[in-house]
């Protein structure tokens, strides 16, 4: 391919790049370019190949076919170190931080400034950067003690520290409040002015509209189209992204709340790590409603989930499911009292990866006389149960004895839902990030199931960091910050600014609701 001499080559060109993994074509003949001083959004569903593509730009993977040009020169890098040297920076979707070390140490490792006593020089340079971009981070705090929002800025500082010309951000807004996202976008606009080319990976449409100059849409590894943001709209982008029209709004009847099925009163419990403990958490969940618990990750959601399912006994307070005191009883008894739960970490907490679909379908229910007789598992009954579940929950698997590891995230989640719902309709359903990492089709399915459970008469507690989901699905919304319920918002208003302030810990006293107001 020849480049015409009158216009400079784009900052980065991806030409016919293909990347194969053992079981999937992650990128299939992708061609696009990034210009200096623009924001290019890479839009696509989970599994569309966005992360693989940017990982190749950063030297994590190498294309099996095609070429990547940087400043018109072929980019032949074997590792991220070489990418950094060339001026390519990346903010990863899952933070790449050494948590027991300070911000300063995290930033200098891998650079030449880490030598001996050269840290003062690095500190000076960083202080300059922080001032230039108005970033407030204590350089000497252990990174593990910072909030996730602050950790995101550490990741950004890491990229800036080595003078970037091309900055890649992979789903950077997932952990931020609406205000935090605005702050990030403002920062990106400033970078743009300085001539930096920016690639923003996202699956959120409004982000595309707000920040990007152009959008490249990926679907199942293929580049579908590149469009100018100004000349497109949400409907077209969804169609490009999913390949069909999608109803983004879930239709549901108004809730008909019944009696209280879950009463959480002033509970406190330690978190899974230094952060994330809960204290004085009080709320009520009624039959026939979906209660949303919104908040930035790390504010106690995991501790609360652990307490509710019984794996982390609370140090204070009481929990009642209907009239039964379940404060200090085993997870088995809590399940028997009518609580079902879907954890956020499917792979580690939701399933046994190397067990079959049918074994996963009866996990925790395997003691029931339906599946076991005198200690011997009833193979035929289990098989029949599995076939019913596969049909009712539209689980795509070659057979019930297929290892669950080989299913997609969406199908794994359907197995978990089937296990938690079939045969013993729960009174209380606690779901934590139920659609994280799922494609639009599977997310739609899960959300419709939650509404169906509500309409059947369950109380549903939806713990989620996805505000669109919370506003879309919930009948009431409470917000958790620093381990306590800081306030409530009305999902009908869908006021992002109001909920963003609460998520950042700025309380609105006028709005009482589910929280313990003090």
């Amino acid at each position, binding site marked *: 391919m020849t480049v015409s001499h009158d216009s400079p080559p784009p900052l980065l060109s991806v030409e016919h790049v293909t990347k194969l993994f053992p079981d999937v074509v992650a990128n299939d003949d992708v061609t696009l370019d990034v210009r200096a001083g623009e924001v290019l959004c890479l839009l696509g569903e989970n599994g569309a190949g966005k992360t693989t593509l940017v*990982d190749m730009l950063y030297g994590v993977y190498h294309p099996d076919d095609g070429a990547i040009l940087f400043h018109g020169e072929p980019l032949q890098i074997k590792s991220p170190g070489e990418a950094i040297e060339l001026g390519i920076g990346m903010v990863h979707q899952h933070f*790449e*931080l050494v948590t027991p070390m300070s911000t300063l140490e995290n930033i200098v490792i*891998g650079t030449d400034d880490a*030598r001996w006593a050269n840290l003062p020089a690095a500190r000076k340079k960083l202080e300059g950067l922080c001032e230039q971009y108005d970033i407030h981070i204590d350089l000497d705090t252990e990174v593990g003690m910072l909030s996730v929002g602050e950790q995101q800025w550490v990741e950004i500082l890491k990229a800036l520290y080595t003078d970037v010309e091309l900055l890649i951000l992979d789903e950077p807004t997932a952990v931020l409040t609406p205000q935090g996202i605005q702050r990030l976008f403002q920062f990106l606009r400033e970078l743009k002015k300085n001539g930096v080319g920016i690639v923003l990976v996202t699956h959120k449409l409004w982000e595309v509209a707000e920040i990007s100059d152009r959008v490249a849409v990926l679907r199942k590894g293929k580049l579908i189209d590149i469009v100018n943001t100004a000349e497109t709209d949400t409907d077209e982008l969804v169609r490009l992204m999913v390949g069909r029209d999608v109803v983004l709004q879930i239709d549901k009847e108004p809730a008909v709340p019944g009696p209280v099925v879950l009463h959480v009163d002033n509970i406190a419990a330690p978190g899974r790590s230094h952060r994330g403990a809960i204290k004085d958490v009080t709320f009520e969940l009624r039959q026939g409603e979906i209660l949303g618990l919104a908040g930035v990750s790390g504010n106690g959601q995991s501790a609360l989930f652990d307490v509710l399912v019984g794996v982390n006994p609370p140090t204070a307070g009481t929990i009642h499911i209907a009239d039964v005191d379940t404060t200090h009883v085993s997870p088995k008894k809590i399940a028997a009292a009518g609580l079902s739960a879907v954890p956020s970490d499917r792979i580690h907490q939701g399933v046994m990866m190397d067990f079959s679909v049918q074994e996963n379908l009866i996990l925790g229910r395997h003691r029931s006389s339906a599946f076991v007789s005198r200690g011997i598992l009833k193979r035929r009954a289990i098989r029949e149960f599995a076939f019913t579940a596969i049909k009712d929950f539209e689980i795509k698997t070659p057979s019930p004895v297929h290892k669950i590891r080989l299913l997609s995230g969406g199908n794994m989640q359907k197995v978990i839902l089937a296990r938690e719902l079939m045969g013993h309709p729960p009174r209380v359903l606690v779901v934590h990030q139920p659609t994280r990492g799922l494609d639009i089709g599977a997310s739609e399915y899960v959300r419709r199931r939650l509404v169906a459970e509500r309409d059947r008469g369950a109380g549903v507690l939806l713990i989620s960091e996805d505000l669109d989901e919370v506003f879309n699905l919930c009948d009431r919304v409470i917000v958790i910050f620093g381990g306590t319920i800081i306030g409530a918002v009305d999902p009908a208003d869908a006021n992002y600014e109001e909920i963003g302030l609460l998520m950042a810990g700025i309380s609105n006293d006028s709005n009482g609701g589910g929280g313990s107001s003090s």
Partner: protein
Amino acid sequence: MMDDIFTHAFAIAVLAAAIRIATPLIFGAIGELVAESSGILNLSIEGTMTVGAFAGFAITGETGSLWLGVAGAVFAGGLMGAIMAFMCATVKVDQIVAGLALNLFGGGLSFFLFRTVFSDQASTGMRNVGVFKVPHFWGLSDIPWVGEIVFSQQWLTYVAFLSVPLVWLFLYKTRYGLELRSVGHNPSACDMRGISVPQKQYFATIFGGMMAGLGGGFLTLSTTGLWFPELISGRGWIALAIVIFGNWRVTWILAGAVFFGFLDGLQLSLQAVGFALPYQLLLALPFVLTVVALVVNRSRSNVPLSLAIPYRRGQR
């Protein structure tokens, strides 16, 4: 008997023995600290010390040079470390399995070679290759107490104690040390910053092996002059325990090694004066105290966060 215990001579004997006995523990534990800091849990210290001791014994026996024996011990320990590093950083097998296997390999190989090369001595009794003379520092060694305890030790003992601040400087004050510790906590983050994870792990594990080899060499070339299969008798395992006991901190590891050396020295001296304390009690103490230290430190453990977890790019 009590009169025997409360004497200057007794106290000096115990304290001097503490420092002497601590020497191989320091080599083993400080080396293991470096390896573990990079995320490699090397359980083969016992076997590596055995190999190091045998290499020192064999080379000194053949050449007559004690210093060549020391070099051989270091080299053989480094080779053992290199095998471990290859299995863990390149092939990425389970580190516990690799370490235990290498342990058996080290002990078995040494005994096999001993039987093959020194078959005549194996049947007729033990051959002694001799030991280093204790160096005398004019003036210093004659100071009462201090001279007798501190300045009447083997050369290799000074090397061991000197290695402690040097390793501390390296781990905490150099770029290479910072990156090595970062690899032990989060190899993925380091990889994404262009730091070569295998390179750091090879370096750390080979260094740890060399130190363990030196510890084994000390036992042969500075204390017994002998080699026999049970020579190390659990010192490698105690070194591993000391790293945990010391909560992965250099100063506490040094303190742990000297403390266990003191216990052992006390036990030996008590036996010498006929005090009937069951020696098994003192043998068990390092492990008991390690469990206690684990419980005490559980909320502020300094354990490298990715210890014993093989790193593969793109997998979490």
